[in-house]
């Protein structure tokens, strides 16, 4: 049977009433979970395991995939409306998304997030369908050395997010790195910078950092700048249309297409998948933009790109799971557990032994993406009502949501304290004009990067040339280098100075 016939058969089984209902329930749950920071998709899928016992394997898995996709959609909502990213993957959305909201353009921001998510999600399922076995084999060639070089290239690439002041950018990165090294060292199990506190043994959760620096920091900023506003009775409100303008469309389309491709490939990589996807999607658009200074001030591409990319990553992340039986992310790891509960052996033979199930799942991904678009678009007018709430009520609400989110991750009060500490750090940094984005990037990328470096040098028995002698690794490094050179040259030619970036500069 060819792919098309298999897919049709998949649709036939995914389109039964109970399976569509399962997808619908999953999507709705996922959206809610995405909105609530702290409760991530992997936790939710795990909590659904007992429910799964009472369902057909197909329905249960479809519901869980719905949760996974829904969470990616939902994550954009709090990012845009409150600058509280619910998932690491929607951090980049918060930057321009919240700026758009402040300008009264929350409607288009949410709409483009939903549309981008839909297109990115759908394109990545097509990619999954057509290229899965091929890509899976290539992905295996990515070892620690290659991963490290890829991260170096990515970091060079994202240097555009540094902002104008180099020193301040480096300070921001240094703080991010400091946060990233807290916790037990993977290679030795030795606690680093934990100050004897068990809370720090497994490191500081990136979500806490994000919610603190962005969400709580924003509230503190508002508190100290209140006098500039009028008496605190003001509201953000809405201006203009809820829907995208012609100009919005023109800007968003190319970003959505590019980010779909980027997100898909980033998703295949183990470990960093969807958050890396968001970062890369955003950076590429900023790089390509004629007026990169618009980014951080509410550029619609800045919302379209990361939201598309993190949804496109879901299809990529499923490739190692379906073709090799190896989880590429927290959520897919839990999904594999569910497979085994049903006595389905995930692994290299899954696609041949259980073709019917796999294709039903793939078909359900298409269905869930459509359901999510249908669920999300009509709700936009409702969601944006939040911004009609006077700011003096909205700000405390942000604090509450962030605090509840921080607590619910591990039922730990210490995390709430940490949240507010990071809020303070975020506020001080803004005060001093230190950009926040480099810190976030460092905190997201550094743990994986450090481990890859250590693993690669351990494997090569301390020989650092491993990064140059391994061909794929060398290609990544060269790409990073060429990129920097090209950048310098083009800058000299166009005499375009580094543009002061991002939302932090008030």
């Amino acid at each position, binding site marked *: 049977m060819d792919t098309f016939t298999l897919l049709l058969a998949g649709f036939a089984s995914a389109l039964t009433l*109970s399976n569509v209902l399962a997808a619908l329930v999953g999507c709705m749950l996922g959206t809610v*979970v995405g909105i609530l920071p702290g409760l991530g998709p992997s936790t939710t899928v795990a909590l659904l395991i007992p429910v799964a016992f009472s369902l057909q394997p197909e329905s249960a898995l479809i519901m869980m995939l719905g949760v996974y996709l829904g969470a990616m959609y939902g994550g954009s909502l709090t990012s845009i409306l409150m600058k509280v990213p619910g998932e690491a993957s929607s951090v980049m959305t918060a930057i321009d998304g919240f700026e758009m909201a402040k300008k009264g353009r929350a409607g288009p921001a949410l709409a483009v997030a939903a549309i981008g998510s839909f297109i990115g999600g759908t394109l990545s399922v097509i990619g999954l369908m057509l290229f899965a076995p091929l890509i899976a084999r290539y992905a295996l060639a990515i070892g620690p050395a290659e991963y490290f070089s890829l991260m170096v290239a990515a970091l060079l690439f994202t240097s555009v997010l540094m902002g104008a002041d180099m020193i301040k950018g480096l300070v921001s990165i240094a703080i991010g790195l400091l946060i990233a090294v807290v916790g037990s060292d993977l290679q030795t*199990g030795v606690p680093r910078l934990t100050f004897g506190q*068990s809370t720090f043994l497994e490191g500081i959760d990136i979500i806490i950092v994000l919610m603190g620096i962005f969400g709580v920091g924003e509230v503190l900023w508002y508190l100290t700048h209140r006098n500039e506003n009028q008496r605190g009775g003001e509201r953000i409100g809405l201006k203009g249309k809820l829907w995208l303008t012609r100009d919005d469309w023109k800007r968003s389309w190319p970003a959505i297409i590019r980010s779909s491709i980027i997100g898909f490939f980033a998703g295949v990589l*183990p470990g960093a998948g969807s958050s890396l996807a968001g970062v890369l999607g955003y950076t590429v658009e900023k790089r390509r933009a004629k007026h990169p200074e618009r980014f951080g001030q509410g550029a619609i591409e800045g919302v379209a790109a990361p939201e598309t990319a993190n949804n496109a990553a879901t299809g990529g992340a499923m490739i190692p799971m379906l073709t090799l039986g*190896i989880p590429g992310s927290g959520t897919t790891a839990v999904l594999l557990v569910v497979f*085994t509960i049903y006595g389905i052996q995930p692994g290299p033979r899954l696609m041949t032994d259980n073709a019917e199930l796999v294709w039903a799942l793939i078909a359900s991904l298409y269905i869930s993406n459509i359901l999510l678009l249908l669920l999300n678009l009509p709700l936009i007018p409702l969601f944006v009502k939040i911004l009609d709430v006077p700011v003096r009520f909205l700000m405390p609400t942000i604090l509450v949501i962030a605090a509840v989110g921080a607590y619910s991750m591990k039922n730990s009060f210490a995390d709430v304290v940490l949240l507010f500490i990071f809020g303070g750090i975020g506020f001080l940094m803004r005060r001093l004009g230190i950009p926040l984005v480099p810190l976030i990037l460092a905190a997201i990328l550094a743990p994986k990067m450090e481990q890859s470096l250590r693993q690669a040098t*351990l*494997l090569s028995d301390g020989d650092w040339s491993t990064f140059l002698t391994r061909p794929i690794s060398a290609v990544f490094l060269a790409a990073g280098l060429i990129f920097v050179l090209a950048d310098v040259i083009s800058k000299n030619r166009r005499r375009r100075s580094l543009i002061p970036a991002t939302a932090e500069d008030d």
Partner: protein
Amino acid sequence: MKRSARFTLAAATAAIVAITGVSCSSNAGSGGTDGAVEYPSGAIEFATAGDPGGGLDLFARQIQQTLSAESLTDAQIDITNIGGGGGNPTMALGRQRAGTAETLLGNSNRVYLNPIMGTTDLTMGKDFVPIAQLMTEYVVLAVREDSPFTSGSQVMEALREDTRALTLGVGTVPSDDQLHLLRAAEAAGVAAEDLNIVAFSSGGDLLTQLLGGQVDAISTGFSEALPQYEAGEIRILAISAPERLDGPASGIPTWIEQDVDVVVEHWRGVFGPADMPATAVKYWEDTFEKMVATDAWADVLERNQWAPLFRTGDDFGAIIEEEAETGERLLRSVGLIE
């Protein structure tokens, strides 16, 4: 079809309840057992040192399910996930709730590894008491199917000649993955402290590294290696069980069969708070003893690729002390502790 649709809806409702319920499961019970009321009289909080979906969470949930399906206890068991902190916050409940009878704690070998590594001062006996060891997983040594090695003893021979002959992958450090390698090496006369062992954070990542040829051999739980083993992508050279297992592992020789005298049990067990009343300890020992004899538990073991293992109270405690001693000596020899 209509019926199954309704079923889905019901399941969804249950899901929502489950999700909203999880973050607010409250501290169960207070005080010790009351002589007049038969134990257990109320809800029991089963705190597990892991996030939902993780190994220890699955362990707790399978116990909860089996006990209720077989009606082995009148107690209502509520599971609380206390993730993070290397499992220390879970065991801290043992100290906080000393003398009470309404808390059970699910954990693994971290109860002794953490004190060895100096990340906690919570220790067995003083802060929590052993109740029962309920099952184990065995650890395997695996290579890619195109590897020149066909037995565990061959690997050990190669390492005896050159301890850096192979790069070895494990999940985390310190762990049973790692101790398995160190103990097997020691038993085979290899200088364990010189081995090149690299940690790869998770079992999934570890297998990717093996399949991609980044490491020569890995040490991991049998259940994690099983899919690739059945697909013929990897070869399993040795398993850390005391004797040949049944089922999918029946083709795998133990270390002992290969003249390497080593057994590693990656067990999971249940503990109680410090000074848990003897009646309560006894109650759970008996209840678990009944549980592990049921067919339902046998199914659970089979489904998860766990192996049967049952020890209670003092036997359980003695094993932990023995493992802790070996672990401390080996970790000291490789320089992880001073």
